[in-house]
């Protein structure tokens, strides 16, 4: 897809179909026209919400509007591939996430991009910790009992997830692999909403998902939280113990969203974007909006290119084998 920006000398509105003069090179400083930030998921989802909140403030710093374009497809990989192949001029960016960058290589054998080498990282915009939750009347009351129950009754338990490639899917594959019950019955739903609905209704037994989606139901007592996969407890859920407290310290994983550009983005453009992202995350209003979502604001290291690259490398290493062993494949 060519995304040509051509200035024509003609002022008149053309009716003919194929006009288009290659104009003079644009010499002004970056950015001198609106920037497109792709979101590879439907509008209104967690990735989209974070992209919209962050980009609003970044637009102010950059002095150009950032347009969010939602193009969903194939677990987000279609759009991610499109951005990987785009011109590295800073006008095409993507709000990537754990699924499109860390999990996709193991899930999609025909993936058209390499999440590490085909992108220029900018920084992480938001981190969403993962909680393990069960239905209200599940026999286990803490993580130790939960793990024991799963091991003892692998044929009785049903796990819900939000579709192959979703955060709920990926993080639970890791959990099941670490507990040693990789083949546990998994029920796929189209999105977190329907899965959560059946968990609250008691039709399925447990799921893992981002804290953002689960907090209200945990607080209302509609579902039980077994543990949160972060090093320390979260302020929004002070009564939920960490996985380390529950005897499963190796289960450490969080969902994350980060901005990427195509590979070969010039250093000065990358610096400008990193700076804009930093300013957005330091802005009290933006910061509060993200925190209200249940999102953890990335620290100074994580919101820099090198930090995000490290998180990406860590997650790819963590998820690769469990995902490949799970047998789930996209194409």
């Amino acid at each position: 897809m060519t995304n040509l920006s051509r200035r024509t000398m003609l002022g008149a509105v053309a009716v003919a179909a194929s006009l288009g003069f290659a104009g003079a090179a644009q010499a002004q400083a970056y950015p001198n026209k609106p920037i497109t930030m792709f979101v590879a998921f439907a509008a209104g989802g967690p990735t989209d919400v974070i992209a919209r909140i962050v980009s609003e403030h970044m637009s102010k710093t950059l002095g150009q509007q950032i347009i969010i374009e939602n193009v969903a497809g194939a677990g987000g990989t279609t759009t991610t591939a499109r951005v990987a192949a785009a011109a590295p001029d800073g006008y095409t960016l993507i709000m990537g996430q754990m699924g499109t960058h860390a999990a996709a290589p193991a899930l999609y054998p025909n993936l058209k991009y390499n999440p590490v080498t085909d992108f220029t990282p900018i920084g992480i915009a938001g981190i969403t910790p993962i909680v393990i939750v069960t239905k209200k009347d599940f026999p286990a009351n803490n993580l130790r009992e939960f793990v024991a129950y799963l091991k003892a009754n692998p044929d009785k338990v049903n796990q819900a997830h939000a579709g192959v490639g979703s955060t709920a899917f990926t993080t639970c594959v890791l959990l099941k692999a670490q507990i040693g019950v990789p083949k546990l019955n998994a029920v796929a739903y189209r999105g977190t909403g329907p899965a959560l609905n059946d968990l609250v209704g008691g039709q399925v037994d447990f799921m893992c998902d981002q804290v953002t989606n689960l907090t209200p139901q945990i607080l209302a007592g509609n579902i039980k939280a077994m543990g949160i996969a972060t090093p320390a407890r979260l302020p929004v859920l002070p009564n939920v113990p960490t996985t380390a407290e529950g005897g499963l310290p190796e289960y450490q994983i969080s969902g994350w969203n980060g901005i990427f550009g195509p590979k070969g983005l010039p250093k000065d453009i990358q610096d400008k974007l990193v700076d804009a992202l930093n300013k957005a995350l330091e802005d009290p209003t933006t910061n509060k909006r993200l925190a209200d979502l249940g999102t953890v604001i990335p620290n100074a290291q994580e919101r820099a290119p090198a930090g995000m690259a490290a998180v990406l490398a860590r997650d790819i290493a963590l998820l690769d084998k469990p995902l490949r062993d799970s047998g789930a494949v996209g194409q």
Partner: protein
Amino acid sequence: MLRPRIAAPQDFAGGLFLIAIGLGALWASSGLGMGTLRAMGPGMLPKSLAVMVAGLGVLLLLTSLRVEGPALDRWSLRGLIFVLLGACLFALTIRGSDLPFGFTLPAIGLIAAGPLVAIVSAFASPETKWGEVLLFAAFMTALCAGIFKYALGLPIPLAPWLLGY
């Protein structure tokens, strides 16, 4: 035409159509596993449905041989070609596209692709008055730009070659 022996030519053709789709779907889903009832594979439903569609096609075909029914309609190619061509041209030019053999179409945006749809599709009707169509196309495009681009704020390229977006 197979007129002499078929009582309901329209249904006969409809039956063939269903059989073709059914077989096509069966072929397209041939690589998908059926799975078991406990863990249904991705191919279970598409394959069963394809067989059922083709089966109903056969049934329709058989009844059409005996039971009287309507004759086959003529296809009006003029409407078909220009209406669909208009839509396809819009698809190819709104953001530009790469065609086979190294040809590319420029991204002309809504300002030019809009009138293009209206004008190309206007060839579909014998009643078209060209002056009227040109004016109307310009007016409708302006209206659409106003509604979709400005009022609703949808990210539609307006005129990348002129405005840069």
